[in-house]
């Protein structure tokens, strides 16, 4: 999950990877033994609930609306997309 | 006219990834040519830190065409690290496996990869110049090829459990003895295989006169030859000691224990290729150019040791001389070896003790270093490992047949290109000959994943600055 989030914040992720993140987070929540594990994906769920548009901006428009993330150049994103799988 | 470079990339109908570049000088003649191996595998690094018992199977993954030869060489290196004597039946079963592998690989090389050039012609339509084209023109030749390859593959499958990458060869011997039913089914297939091998050899001998020009320009030059021989001079495939002879029959080295390979073979890395070039140390680089594989094996051995193959060998020497020097004759030598290997398999499996269940010796790590050698279909293969006291691999070095032949392949490419290519009006058939000379060596570029003959060939003709002048595509 960290890896996927990191890729999103660097502008390297695709929409498929966001879906991957959501399914992974759901799995971790549902199958964990203790509250710590069950709660660990909560930041992902709450940010997705309230700020999904910002996630999409990172992925589709290659910008960080809050100006926090340092995006990799677009060419790197294309190359990373090709090399990811 | 400015300097030009012709690039053939990728080279087709070989096992692996490679390209050829041909540099033309100002008057359009071939100035230089190189054979580049563009893939990098790194098995010597991957094996570090692994248990020595995994090595035969791990190293077999280098190649899907000749995994068995790697397994045998690797297992022999491991035998030495364990300090064991492999039970005689274990040695023989490994030998059968390696011979079966040579039959199937030679069949692949000759029928699938090279027979399209020989049968249909070097200048024929490239779209039809493949095994399917061969099957259309002379179905029985194609059938023989498929059947011989299957014969070899089925032996491997019966002995090792599967056709590719069987985990049967282990340090100390083999993991499971042979069953009577398996032996019987292999023996039952031998007469048919033998008949097909002889039929192909006869076909080749009938037609060899039509390739005189290629014979003369497909890497015809004096060099050294190296191969394994048994005591007494019979050709050896899984055991034996190294012998090196030159083109006039001088024995440069004989009875060389493979452990001493470092004293005789030097390795150099050329900037244009990932493939190491090996040379015969006493003569230095590049004078110590030598060849291995079928042609070299027949040159170093006094005889093969089976009557039918020795009769063919006598005829071969009568036609070509005692030490044939053209790489074109790899094809001829390969076909004789198929005949020989089938007869040796027959001979070994007919022994009464072959079902003996004692096929493996076990031991702990007793030495920290081991060298193993075998004859792969394409030539001498050396595995050399160093392990720590717990049996974890610390260092590995592999000297592969295609590396031995690297210098010779480069020289052959240059010779063929000089003869066939003049100016930038390059015809497809000319370039095909440059590729075909590489196919003579049946180089195994440690690669198992490519559909044969399916890769597009693209030739770039560039001027001295590297800008593209012309592009020819198949």
């Amino acid at each position, binding site marked *: 999950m960290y*890896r996927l989030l990191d890729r999103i914040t660097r502008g390297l992720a695709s929409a498929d990877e966001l879906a991957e993140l959501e399914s992974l987070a759901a799995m971790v929540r549902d199958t964990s*033994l203790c509250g710590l594990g069950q709660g660990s994906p909560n930041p992902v769920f709450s940010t997705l609930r309230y700020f999904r548009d910002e996630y999409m901006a990172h992925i589709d428009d290659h910008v960080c609306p809050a100006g926090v993330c340092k995006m990799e150049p677009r060419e790197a994103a294309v190359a990373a997309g090709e090399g990811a799988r | 006219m400015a300097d030009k470079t012709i690039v053939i990339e990728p080279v087709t109908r070989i096992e692996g990834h490679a390209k050829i570049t041909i540099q033309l000088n100002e008057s359009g003649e071939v100035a230089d040519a190189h054979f580049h191996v563009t893939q990098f595998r790194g098995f010597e690094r991957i094996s570090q830190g692994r*248990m020595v018992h995994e090595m035969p199977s791990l190293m077999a993954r280098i190649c899907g065409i000749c995994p068995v030869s790697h397994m045998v060489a690797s297992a022999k290196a491991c035998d030495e690290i364990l300090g064991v004597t492999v039970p005689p039946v274990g040695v023989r079963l490994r030998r059968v496996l390696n011979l079966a592998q040579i039959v199937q690989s030679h069949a692949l090389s000759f029928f699938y990869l090279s027979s399209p050039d020989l049968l249909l012609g070097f200048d024929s339509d490239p779209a039809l110049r493949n095994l399917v084209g061969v099957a259309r023109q002379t179905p029985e030749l194609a059938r023989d090829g498929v059947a011989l390859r299957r014969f070899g593959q089925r032996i491997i499958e019966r002995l090792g459990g599967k056709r590719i990458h069987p*985990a049967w060869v282990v340090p100390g011997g083999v993991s499971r003895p042979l069953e009577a039913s398996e032996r019987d089914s292999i023996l039952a297939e031998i007469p048919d295989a033998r008949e097909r091998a002889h039929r192909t050899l006869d076909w080749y001998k009938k037609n060899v006169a039509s390739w005189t020009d290629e014979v003369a320009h497909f890497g015809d030059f004096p060099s050294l030859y190296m191969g394994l021989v048994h005591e007494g001079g019979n050709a050896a495939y899984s055991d034996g000691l190294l012998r090196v002879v030159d083109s006039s029959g001088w024995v440069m080295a004989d009875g060389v224990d493979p452990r001493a390979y470092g004293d005789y073979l030097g390795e150099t890395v050329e900037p244009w290729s990932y493939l190491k070039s090996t040379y015969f140390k006493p003569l230095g680089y590049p004078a110590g150019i030598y060849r291995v594989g079928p042609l070299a094996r027949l040159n170093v051995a006094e005889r093969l040791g089976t009557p039918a193959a020795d009769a063919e060998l006598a005829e071969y020497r009568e036609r070509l001389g005692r030490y044939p020097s053209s790489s074109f004759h790899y094809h001829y030598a390969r076909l004789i070896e198929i005949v020989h290997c089938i007869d040796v398999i027959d001979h070994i499996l007919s022994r009464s003790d072959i079902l003996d269940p004692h096929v493996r010796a076990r031991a702990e790590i007793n030495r920290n270093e081991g060298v193993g050698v075998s004859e792969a279909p394409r030539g001498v293969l050396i595995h050399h490992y160093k392990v720590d006291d717990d049996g974890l691999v610390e260092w590995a070095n592999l000297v592969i047949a295609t590396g031995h032949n690297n210098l010779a392949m480069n020289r052959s490419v240059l010779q063929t290109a000089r003869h066939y290519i003049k100016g930038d009006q390059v015809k497809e058939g000319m370039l095909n000959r440059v590729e075909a000379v590489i196919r003579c060596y049946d180089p195994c570029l440690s690669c198992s994943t490519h559909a044969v003959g399916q890769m597009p060939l693209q030739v770039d003709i560039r001027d001295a600055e590297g800008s593209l002048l012309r592009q020819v595509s198949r």
Partner: protein
Amino acid sequence: MSVLTLTIEGRDVAGQTGGTILQVARENGIAIPTLCHLQGLSDVGACRLCVVEVEGQRKLLPACVTAIDEGMKVTVNSERLTAYRRRIVELLFTERNHVCSVCVADRNCELQDLAVELGLTHFDLPLLSPQASVDATHERFGIDHNRCVLCTRCVRVCDEIEGAHTWDVMGRGTEARLITDMGIPWGDSNTCTSCGKCVQVCPTGALFEKGRSVAEARRRRPYLPYLVAHEGRTR
């Protein structure tokens, strides 16, 4: 001790008080995939493969450590559960370096069996490819951390049955590793009795007998008299 009745996969079944869902399911021939569970050892619910849906519970519950209750309605197989299980096995594969083709346990491996059973044909997640080591200092056995799934069967068998407690786990998350004693080489351990039980219970090729080559691992679990052979899967 009283008998409780419940339904698993729509079937009416019964079990003793204190029994687990996994026990009752297996007694009734209902298969639930497991990895860290081994009959004869205590259960830790670590691998999460046996999670099931229980009606009225929001959470998924691990069948191996969930006691049955009167009137419980349990679902063992659903689309969601299968997807989760497949993902769990995928995470196990991608976390270390599992290369079946050169593994001593090839074709004799519970992780491999699970991948086949759950239809895991490829990985969507990237491989972590950690640099994990092999400890071959022990005279007879070795451990290849590349192939360890941290099921802790070895830790439990060593502690609960042999009574040596040589094995334990050090580190967290992807850094977690099995250790012998206080993290010293296995060959230097003075608590290890060299009984080999850990090797016999290992579901993968992580713990192996030295001298065995690829696909030669043989787990002799029936010979451990105190352990019942791992049931539910035919070898």
